[in-house]
């Protein structure tokens, strides 16, 4: 379609093309499966359940369970989770179910342990409440340390970037006004046929962050298009293969489905900032993202995908051949996806403390001062930390009362011999909780607060934190 519109125009394309197929294969954390395991004898009203040591939710009556993709194994957390359980079941593997209950007159059993395959289940439906993001952020990390996120491993100081999504192949991007997509739209889901059952949670159409809720018979699905995955230090998830056929009902849809990667833009976002609204550093197109390098300011950054374009193409191709062979019939939606809903943040009734709320004035010294003078300042100002600054007030090191005590014991008099140069710092708008966590992690009791130019703004101490957070 994209080439045809370019070479022959929208009119010709509208006449010649009936359907445009799309596809995407990425990590979709808001995925899971509903299963019914049947009744045991004597019966049990399951209260807590585990499959292969992964905790399973029990949203319904006695034996209905929901396997959430991000629930993690108690024995191998971060490596095996709900996504893997779903993949194993889909692959035909046997899994171990353990369940406990309090026992009732009608459901007397308190424990059950058994092994199951998908053939033993009454229902096994993939039921995903948010899938198929129209587009997604490109992630970088402005911090001085590597971070591990749901956007993968991000190297310090913007040394790499990651993105997700199929760009011009994405289903919702090809029908951005949801003219053909809504409740009842038949789709490719996990290698079988599934359905859209409504808009996904956090559906945000006005910002082009639309999502869908989907359901499909998992017993017919394939592990090629449904893969459990592990994101180090973030957790487990499920890669979901999803494709939607877009019928070309009018010239407008011919034009819309001709969308190109260079027309789809997204923001480069600093995931190093631990806030809901993270700073956006640049705008990039999916064409740049797929080229492997993006530009942020004067920096060229290597970027890689977290979703699989190869599998996305395969999905669009498979869907095309199903339709051509008469194995897949398109449906008109019973109700279209909303185009005007809003994604609200959480209403918070309690204040969240930030570094700025507890920061105190930092007691400083210059590089040229003697240990004796610094020791005196510690006593007169009754503090434990002296921040070392240069002539412009920029951070160059830190000295603690313990450093001074040790210097006296060892007869050292020069600041240069005792100063710590690799200083762990905090930012003004950082949540107190993450600053406090960093102190515990490095086993230290204070963090100088600095701005982006390393200018010292103050200091936050463990003592002040515990006063406020009450621990």
């Amino acid at each position, binding site marked *: 379609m994209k080439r045809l519109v370019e070479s022959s125009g929208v009119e010709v394309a509208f006449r010649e093309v009936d359907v445009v197929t799309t596809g995407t294969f990425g990590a979709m954390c808001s995925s899971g499966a509903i299963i019914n395991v049947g009744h045991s004898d004597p019966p049990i009203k399951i209260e807590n359940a585990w499959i292969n040591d992964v905790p399973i939710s029990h949203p319904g009556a006695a034996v209905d369970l929901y396997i959430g993709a991000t629930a993690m194994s108690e024995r191998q957390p971060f*490596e095996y989770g709900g996504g893997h359980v779903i993949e194993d079941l889909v692959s035909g593997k046997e899994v171990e179910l353990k369940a406990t209950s309090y026992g009732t007159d009608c459901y007397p059993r308190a424990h059950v342990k058994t092994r199951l395959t998908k053939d033993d289940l009454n229902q096994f439906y993939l039921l995903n409440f948010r899938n198929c993001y129209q587009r997604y952020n490109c992630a970088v990390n402005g911090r001085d340390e590597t971070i591990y996120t749901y956007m*993968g491993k991000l190297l310090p100081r913007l040394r790499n970037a990651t993105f997700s999504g199929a760009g011009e192949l994405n289903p919702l991007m090809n029908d951005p006004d949801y003219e053909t997509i809504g409740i009842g739209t038949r789709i490719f889901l996990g290698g079988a046929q599934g359905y859209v059952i409504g808009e996904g949670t956090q559906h945000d159409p006005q910002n082009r962050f639309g999502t869908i809720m989907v359901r499909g018979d998992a017993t017919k699905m394939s592990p090629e298009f449904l893969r459990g995955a*592990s994101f180090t230090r973030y957790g487990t998830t499920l*890669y979901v293969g999803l494709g939607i056929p877009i019928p070309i009902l009018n010239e407008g849809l011919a034009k819309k489905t001709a969308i190109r990667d260079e027309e789809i833009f997204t923001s480069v976002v600093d995931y190093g900032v631990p806030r809901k609204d993270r700073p956006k550093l640049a705008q990039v197109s999916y064409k740049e993202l797929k080229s*492997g390098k993006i530009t942020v300011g004067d920096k060229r950054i290597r970027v890689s995908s*977290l979703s*699989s*374009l190869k599998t996305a*193409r395969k999905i669009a191709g498979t869907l095309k051949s199903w339709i051509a062979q008469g194995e897949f019939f398109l449906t008109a939606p019973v109700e279209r996806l909303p185009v005007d809903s809003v994604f609200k943040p959480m209403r918070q009734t309690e204040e969240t403390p930030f570094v700025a709320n507890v920061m105190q004035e930092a007691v400083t010294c210059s590089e040229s001062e003697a240990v004796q003078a610094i020791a005196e300042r510690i006593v007169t100002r009754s503090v434990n930390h002296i921040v070392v600054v240069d002539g412009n007030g920029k951070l160059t090191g830190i000295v603690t009362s313990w450093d001074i005590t040790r210097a006296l014991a060892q007869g050292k008099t020069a600041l240069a011999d005792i100063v710590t140069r690799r200083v762990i710092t905090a930012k003004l708008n950082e949540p107190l909780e993450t600053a406090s966590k960093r102190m515990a992690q490095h086993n230290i009791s204070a963090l100088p607060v600095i701005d982006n130019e390393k200018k010292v703004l103050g200091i936050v101490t463990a003592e002040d934190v515990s006063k406020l957070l009450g621990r």
Partner: protein
Amino acid sequence: MVRILLRFSENIVEKPITSQIILELRVPINIITAHVDSKGGEVLAEVPDESLVKVVKAFRERGATVSIPKLIEIDSEKCISCGACLTLCPVEAITMDEDASVVFNQEKCLGSTCSACVDACPSRAIKSVKQNNSELTANKAH
């Protein structure tokens, strides 16, 4: 070729050990990475399979510590060609070809001395594995 990891302590780092061995044994030793300062050195080098035993022996005789780092392997069954590993590789040993498949060039890879890609793989398709049989032979060459 087999990769070996050489460590030189403070006492011997000043000596031209690698050059001496190349000249003496007439073996091409290819240096992949090297971090050397006055306190010691760590060198990742590649030597021909057939010379491995004598090269390892020669380095050990001169006081260097020799270990054989594991290789990185990508399990093509598990790999979904997402590409999450690409930007973590410092030597661009992992690339993506025209049809969006991930391609791994083991010749360029730094092996388990680097391993930056391993914990970035969502499908856990990347593993450190032992090098071929020559490891066993080399470990006997004390």
